[in-house]
């Protein structure tokens, strides 16, 4: 396996811009890190998860689906240059596999696959997290992984596309194994995961009362950020704008934390009450998706806890659920 210095990684990514629309972690002037083009600001590979929604290169906040003019429709076309998205964390890549499946199921979502098809994804992991933290190794869920050993980035390809990319990388030092890094990754604490699993079971067993959700809902200011930034949230609203003779159809990130999200034309609203919406946000990820897709659809990326102005992201809420409703674990039924 090749291993590259940060400088070599940067040069490598730059060299790929002729064939790929490269989007990688960029440091914006105030320190915000987002997925952006290399000319948008200094590349900021180390630092952990980007602040922006990591799936936004494929599923942006606003996207034009088609334009209609005088009887003819111009549909959105597949992107000309394939996307190369660099800098997802293992959790982000896990989330991406979930939405890939979601957007392909039943009806294949062209607007998503116009960008996702032919794209490649590179995860960054290892000893390059925020404040020196260790980032979990994905070990898959992407085409190529850059595993940082503290100084250099080891290139671990998982797919044919990943191998081709790695092949194009400059010759760096050869590394035979990342076993020590893998061991370090395996030893990362998984408390959050355990809490999530236990909360998920409590929800499936219907052991979290309505009053709890009312209490949490009282604190929600409906900013929608927990949904907007969540890599597994895929809901959007569709609307049209008429501009002269042209009708433009767009889709826009939506949020189940809004009353209008499920309101029916009659005015009836199955999610008309705040606590029902708050419950849904967590329940959907931890219980409903488990039933439908066979997995929890929270990859514990951590964004909703950071972005929630009221402190009720999924980690905070699941900790609270387990603390309050999971007490029988020692002597009661297993939770």
């Amino acid at each position, binding site marked *: 396996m090749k291993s590259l210095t940060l400088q070599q990684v940067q040069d490598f990514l730059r060299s790929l811009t002729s064939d790929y629309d490269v989007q990688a972690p960029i440091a914006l*002037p105030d320190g915000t890190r987002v997925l952006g083009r290399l000319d948008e600001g200094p590349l900021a590979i180390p630092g952990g998860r980007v602040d922006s929604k990591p799936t936004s290169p494929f599923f942006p*906040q606003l996207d034009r689906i088609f334009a209609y003019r005088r009887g003819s429709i111009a549909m959105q076309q597949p992107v000309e240059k394939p996307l190369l998205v660099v800098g997802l964390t293992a959790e982000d890549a896990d989330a991406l596999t979930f939405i890939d499946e979601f957007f392909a199921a039943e009806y294949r979502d062209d607007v998503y696959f116009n960008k996702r098809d032919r794209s490649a994804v590179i995860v960054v992991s290892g000893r390059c997290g925020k404040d020196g933290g260790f980032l979990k190794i994905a070990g898959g869920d992407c085409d190529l992984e850059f595993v940082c050993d503290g100084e250099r980035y080891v290139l671990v390809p998982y797919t044919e596309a990943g191998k081709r990319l790695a092949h194009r990388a400059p010759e760096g030092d050869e590394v035979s194994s990342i076993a020590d890094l893998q061991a370090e990754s395996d030893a990362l604490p998984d408390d959050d995961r355990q809490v999530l699993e236990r909360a998920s079971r409590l929800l499936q067993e219907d052991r979290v009362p309505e009053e709890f959700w009312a209490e949490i809902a009282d604190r929600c200011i409906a900013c929608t950020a927990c949904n907007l930034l969540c890599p597994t949230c895929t809901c959007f609203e569709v609307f049209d704008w008429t501009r002269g003779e042209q009708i433009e159809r767009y889709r826009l990130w939506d949020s189940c934390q809004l009353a209008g999200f499920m309101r029916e034309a009659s005015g009836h609203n199955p999610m008309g009450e705040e606590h029902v919406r708050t419950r849904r946000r967590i329940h959907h990820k931890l219980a409903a998706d488990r039933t439908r897709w066979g997995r929890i659809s929270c990859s514990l990326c951590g964004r909703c806890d950071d972005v929630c102005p009221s402190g009720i992201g999924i980690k905070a809420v699941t900790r609270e659920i387990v603390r309050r409703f999971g007490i029988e674990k020692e002597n009661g039924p297993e939770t």
Partner: protein
Amino acid sequence: MKRVLTTCPYCGVGCNLYLVVGDDGRLVGVEPSVGHPVSRGQLCIKGWNAFHFVNHPDRLTHPLIRRGGRLVPASWDEALALVAGRMREIQDKHGPDSVAVFSSAKTTNEENYLAMKLTRAVFKTNNVDHCARLCHASTVAGLAATFGSGAMTNSIACVEQADLFFVIGSNTTEQHPIIGARIIQVCQNGGKLMVADNRKIRLARLADLHLRHRNGTDVALLNAMMHVIISEGLTDEEFIASRTERYEDLERLVAHYPPARAARITGLTPEEIADAARLFASADHAMIIYAMGITQHTHGVDNVRSCANLAMLTGNIGRPGTGVNPLRGQNNVQGACDMGALPDVYSGYQRVTDDAARAKFQRAWGVRGLPRDVGITSTAAIDAAAAGDLKALYVIGENPTLSHPDIRHVRTALQNLEFLAVQDIFQTTTADLADVVLPACSFAEKDGTFTSTERRVQRVRRAVSPIGESRPDWHIICEIASRAGYSGMQYDSPDAVMEEIAALTPSYGGISYSRLDGPGLQWPCPAADHQGTPVLHVGKFARGQGVFRPADYRPPAELPDDDYPFVLTTGRNYFHFHTGTMTRRSRLLHREERFPYVEISPEDARSLGIRDQQWIHVGTRRGEVRVQARVTDTAMKGVLFMPFHYVEAAANLLTINALDPEAEIPEFKVCAARVRSTP
């Protein structure tokens, strides 16, 4: 793709965000600024949708001139010449004070400064004002008189240093959501919360004490709280002795407000009032947070003074985590006031009646004869137009036909003008009455600065090119000045305007664009090496000693009677902003609150046989509108609440044009109304 750091165009919290520009040069989203001290990577729903209206097909794209009764497209040259020409002509005929300018709390500091310069240096009148008249005129007057500075005394970061919040007349989680959410978090960790507001707002649901006093009885409540604090010896004697004057006046006046008397006025119990007083006085760090519930009354200034009295009485001012904190509504209403878009002051609150100030501005602007007399307020301007005394009005980014009280009167007044020019980004109902409509750029298409509620001066940056032929407001204002024959308003960029502002405005003296690349500076920032002032009145008040100015309770102008048995109070909801021109064109925001509505208590709804979501009529002596009933325990029995965003059922058709005698702010918060459920 690119991202441009800028300041949210909605509320006064002043969150910073990135506008995301797509490859086609159009906005495609928003990302919060993680490094900004206020946003910290968080926004409310309005911030998350702040990009949306910019490219809306309804944007005004070229100037319009009224010809044969209709507004038709015209060239910029024609439109600008017409504005300058007609204003001059009317002044020649009727004198300088026959014209007025409404500036805008949505536009930048530079633009507000230029609007006031245009009014004063070019048109030689002090008739300039803006929508602070409708929101915090009482604060500017009330706090300036007591403390010497009419602004939020503390910073948003102080929320995390407070151990008690007294939120009175502010629906903080909806109107200043990021501040509201921070309060929630502090209270989750042991902070105490007291809410005085008869609507059961979100903060009230979480409060340790919720006071549902009658609308407009704040002075009685506050006086009685101070009565208890004094009689139980809970005052901060040292603070009173060393930092304040005229304490005896307060003592004497509040002696007449025992809780039993205030209970009769407010509808609270004497115990509730005493509990509130004790809880407030028990805190080491108590923050008073208020907004329109305090200011929009015929006794708005008295309300503000009473809040200030309570803070001084308990020594809760001049320290982090305390203070009297008016939350300013608009993104730049603080700045518009700071810039002197007010009839009585130049920038930095330098009085037009002060000879030295006038001489200073004459010199700097190279003009003579700056007017000595205080101009008319925007509320008075409407009355003057109706009376035929005001002949021409240039409205920049305001929508008085929806935002002022009693809009039937406003429409008549505007129709009575000889000339009306309106500059905006959308065709508003005010623009519908105009002789000339000038298409302006939105916040996303121009550079400048906004000053947030915590006095933080921060950058607004151009992210996309102007839509159609629209131009930045600063540019338009300067063009009008040149066409009116004044050569002193030619600038290459807003940057140069800020240089002039800094040179003439002591509190902005140290502010320049080169220093605003980071999170901005909080005024007073008098010198280039000054780091700004997060907390005002530390050690000493801006005016020296703080002065107690006690006020007696005065009832609102119009109270319920047999014909109009309800109190109607008006305000905003979470999803919309003011007259809704931007938010109602933002998909998600509009979808959330599509219809005009009135909140009515379950008891009242039951006795009137009204169901939730039923369309009903709400009427006052001024008019009647058809709105959806929202039956909710948020509303107290006997009180109706209506947001004023909806052009199809304007709450301000109902409100009363009754003004505070000092601040001339209208009483949007109380009038008498009735409800009719028949079609």
